[in-house]
């Protein structure tokens, strides 16, 4: 098959092609999109990402069947080309292939492929269609670069690039001020993390004199003498990496940008939340676990903040009404779980959760996009009900997604969440079990708010918002300002008219509101994934953690540090306690079912009962008042406190955390205002400033040298 290449070389060349195809698609679209492709702009993008996906899949299979490496070589890494070479300092463009990067590459490209296909239906006829796909391809390019890089500098390139692409995509509907603000907010917040990451990279270079993963993780780090000599640095590096990861993965206190990021088109949200942006942080920490394992306080901090973020975001999600916003908070919450998993040193569990989460969160966002598409942009769950009848496919798909997200037994989220929680419960870390308890409580809340949405929107009697069936008004062409007029906005944009006409033309009346096949086919694929992906973590291997666990864990790196789940002796083991995992599984299942039942009661059963009471059984008010008391009891004992805490936390979110970000942006400005008067505009004051500067410098030197 590869005439002159060994499988090893073939793998390197193939994996270099994974980022190359999306990049090519982005360049082609940027150059030719406006003139040639126009409405078929999705074609190169989909071709590019599907090629990447197939290659990634092929690599995955090669790894799985041991075609790639001798038993001892656990990773493949090679420099393709030296980017910056300067004596001792060398940064190269290179590939690092191991099960972790391979798995990430496969699901990133796979989920992206589905999202791209969906987008071709969802964004059809939108203004700047080619621009959208160019940015999306760029996004995938940077993400795959990040995942496949073999050194920190290249990871940094991907890291910044992902930020840039997200900035462009979140601000895609730039005529909306909210979109612009959200884009800026995302970029600035990420910039805080980027700065931390950059400093961490510097410190890594200073400490290890190399930026290559193979040198950093498996070189001198293994020697206790080296670790003892660099204690402080080895504390700061993981800490800074942690902040970098927190910004990208939206963890407290740097999570503020993610809920706002839904200002971009819905497929962008799906891409950000499921496949690309937010998983980068998890990838980074999972990749750098060897560094973290040597500094437990930082690792525990990761777990602690992850756990707190999971709980906080879940309670906030309970009191939101906007569907996308609920899913955004749920993403933050689920990412919290992943960091909780990393914090108790179960990299496998965290990556497993990333993997399943990618399916169901993409599914939920895309299905929500379908709802939004059908409802004319309306997303308020109070304004719609019973959509099951109008959108059967979407409803079934979203049910699968909700079951997976809520951790309902049998669906994918159940297994991956359980992995993390049982690892936490059995952690050697004293507080691990407490985090697990909070995680279980969060699971209950998760099940509740997930099904609150489902029951509200898809069950019950059919209620449609006023905008249903219309097309969402394009932000580029506000109503009443249709193209063809002489308004300045459209000046010199000849192509815009056609696009807008298409968008507003009366479409053929569909039987259901599920949308084009391009939209519901990916949903079905994702629903299947969301349902069954979890079994990969149970079956398929004799190792604990099923196929995933076996795949990720089968490779002892360098013979000394195994990639998690089993670090060598002396390091924290993910399993140290004696709580039976089956027990946790049962508790988790019970809590998930309980959450679903509570949601069903409040948002399905009671809703109908209340309606009946109101209409038919007027004399039985007294009796029903008892019911209502119970309702109140529930309300006040369970829902209210949680809602209240959610409210408090969302207030905190709004004021304190936003305030923090504001302060970070504000201090330089304040400093600017303080020294602004020095630029007085008067020649004389400039001269005085200059002479004073000279005098002060001379005086200082005189003083210091004397």
């Amino acid at each position, binding site marked *: 098959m590869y005439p002159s290449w060994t499988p090893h070389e073939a793998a390197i060349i193939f994996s270099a092609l994974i980022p190359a195809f999306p990049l090519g698609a982005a360049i082609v679209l940027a150059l030719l999109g406006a003139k040639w492709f126009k409405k078929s702009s999705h074609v190169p993008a989909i071709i590019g990402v599907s090629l990447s996906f197939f290659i990634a899949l092929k690599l995955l299979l090669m790894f799985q069947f041991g075609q790639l490496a001798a038993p001892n070589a656990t990773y493949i890494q090679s420099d393709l080309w030296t980017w910056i070479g300067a004596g001792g300092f060398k940064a190269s463009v290179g590939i690092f292939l191991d099960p972790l990067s391979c798995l990430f590459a496969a699901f990133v490209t796979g989920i992206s492929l589905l999202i791209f296909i969906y987008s071709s239906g969802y964004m059809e006829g939108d203004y700047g269609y080619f621009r959208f796909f160019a940015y999306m391809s760029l996004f995938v390019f940077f993400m795959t670069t990040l995942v496949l890089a073999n050194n920190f500098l290249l990871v940094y390139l991907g890291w910044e690039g992902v930020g840039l692409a997200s900035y462009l995509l979140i601000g895609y509907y730039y005529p909306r001020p909210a979109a612009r603000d959200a884009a800026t907010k995302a970029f600035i917040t990420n910039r805080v993390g980027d700065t931390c990451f950059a400093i961490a990279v510097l410190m890594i270079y200073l400490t290890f004199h190399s930026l290559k993963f193979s040198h950093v993780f498996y070189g001198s780090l293994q020697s206790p003498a080296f670790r003892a000599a660099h204690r402080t640095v080895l504390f700061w590096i993981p800490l800074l990496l942690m902040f970098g990861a927190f910004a990208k993965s939206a963890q407290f206190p740097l999570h503020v940008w993610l809920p706002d990021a839904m200002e971009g088109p819905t497929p962008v949200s799906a891409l950000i939340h499921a496949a690309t942006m937010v998983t980068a942080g998890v990838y980074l920490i999972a990749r750098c676990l060897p560094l973290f394992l040597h500094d437990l306080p930082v690792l525990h901090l990761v777990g602690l903040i992850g756990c707190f973020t999971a709980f906080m975001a879940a309670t906030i999600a309970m009191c939101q009404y906007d569907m996308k916003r609920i899913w955004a908070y749920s993403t933050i919450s689920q990412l919290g779980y992943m960091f909780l998993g990393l914090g108790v040193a179960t990299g496998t569990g965290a990556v497993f959760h990333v993997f399943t989460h990618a399916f169901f969160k993409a599914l939920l966002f895309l299905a929500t996009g379908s709802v939004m598409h059908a409802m004319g942009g309306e997303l308020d769950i109070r304004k719609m009900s019973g959509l099951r009848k109008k959108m059967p496919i979407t409803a079934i798909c979203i049910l699968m997604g909700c079951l997976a997200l809520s951790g309902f037994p049998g669906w994918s989220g159940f297994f991956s969440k359980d992995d993390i929680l049982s690892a936490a419960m059995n952690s050697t870390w004293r507080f691990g079990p407490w985090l697990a308890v909070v995680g279980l409580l969060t699971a209950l809340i998760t099940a509740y708010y997930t099904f609150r949405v489902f029951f509200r929107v898809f069950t019950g009697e059919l209620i449609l918002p006023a905008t249903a069936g219309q097309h969402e008004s394009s932000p580029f062409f506000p109503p009443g300002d249709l193209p063809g007029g002489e308004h300045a906005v459209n000046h010199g944009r000849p192509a815009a008219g056609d696009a807008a006409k298409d968008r507003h033309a009366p479409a053929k009346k569909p039987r259901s509101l599920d949308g084009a096949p391009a939209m519901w086919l990916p949903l079905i694929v994702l629903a299947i994934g969301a349902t069954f992906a979890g079994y990969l973590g149970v079956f398929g291997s004799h190792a604990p953690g099923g196929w995933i666990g076996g795949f990720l864990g089968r490779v002892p790196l360098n013979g000394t540090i195994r990639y998690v789940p089993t670090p060598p002796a002396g390091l924290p083991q993910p399993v140290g306690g004696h709580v039976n995992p089956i027990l946790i599984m049962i508790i988790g299942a019970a809590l998930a079912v309980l959450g679903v039942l509570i949601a069903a009661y409040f948002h399905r059963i009671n809703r109908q009962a209340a309606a009946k009471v109101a209409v038919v059984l007027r004399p039985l008010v007294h009796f029903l008042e008892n019911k209502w008391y119970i309702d109140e009891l529930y309300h006040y004992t369970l829902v209210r406190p949680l809602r209240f805490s959610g409210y408090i936390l969302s207030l905190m979110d709004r004021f304190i955390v936003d305030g923090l970000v504001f302060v970070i942006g504000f201090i330089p400005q304040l400093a600017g205002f303080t020294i602004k008067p020095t630029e007085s505009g008067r020649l*004389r*004051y400039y001269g*005085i400033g200059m*002479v*004073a500067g*000279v*005098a002060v410098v*001379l*005086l200082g030197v*005189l003083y210091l040298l*004397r």
Partner: protein
Amino acid sequence: MDYTLILATALGAISLYLMLPRGRAALVKLGALIGVLALGAGLLGWFHWTAQEQAVHYPGPPAIFFYIFAAIALASAAGVVCHPRPLYAALYFVLLTLAAAALFLLLRAEFIAVVLIIIYAGAILVTYVFVIMLASPGGEIPAADYDRISADPLAAVLVSFLLLGTILQMMSYGQAALAHGPGAVPAAGPAGFGGMGMLGANLYSHYALPLELAGVLLTVSLVGAVMIARKNEPPVRMLDSGEIPAE
């Protein structure tokens, strides 16, 4: 620390501060008085230094000439800075140039002294005076407001004399610095030192390239002056002033 130097610097600062135009004559006189004191303090300081070096006898003109011309130079510099009427200030500058030329003669730079008088006093200052006259169409008698009251005298005097004090202080610390220098004592050079021949030979042997560059620069500034000052209207006659130094 050399306290006489600090005293002299401080007195000089006060004196200049008082003399800066503020529309009050009494202060100017007080300032001039303090200025004399400052010069005296400076003189004391130098005597003090010189006293440490009794053993060495320097040939050349007696130090009194230096003190006289230095005092004239400083006083006329203060006059340039402080006089509210630009024309008088320009004339003070001529005086400063003459004093400087005299000092150059003491230092055996005869040719430079002559050049200074010819170019500065003779050519540049004349153009200055032209421009001053041009810009004061109502005659010179009432000085403009912006000349009669100086701006920010305190800050300006403070920073300038802070710089001066620092430099003088550094030099007083570093008195021994040039002891290892290659030079001889002043004013004992070979015959012809400072003359036109020596300078010309030096210029055209060692500094031929800078000389060419100076020509380029003069051309550039000439063209530039014309370019800046010309308007679409018929050129104003006065602009040709830029040509004079080019010769």
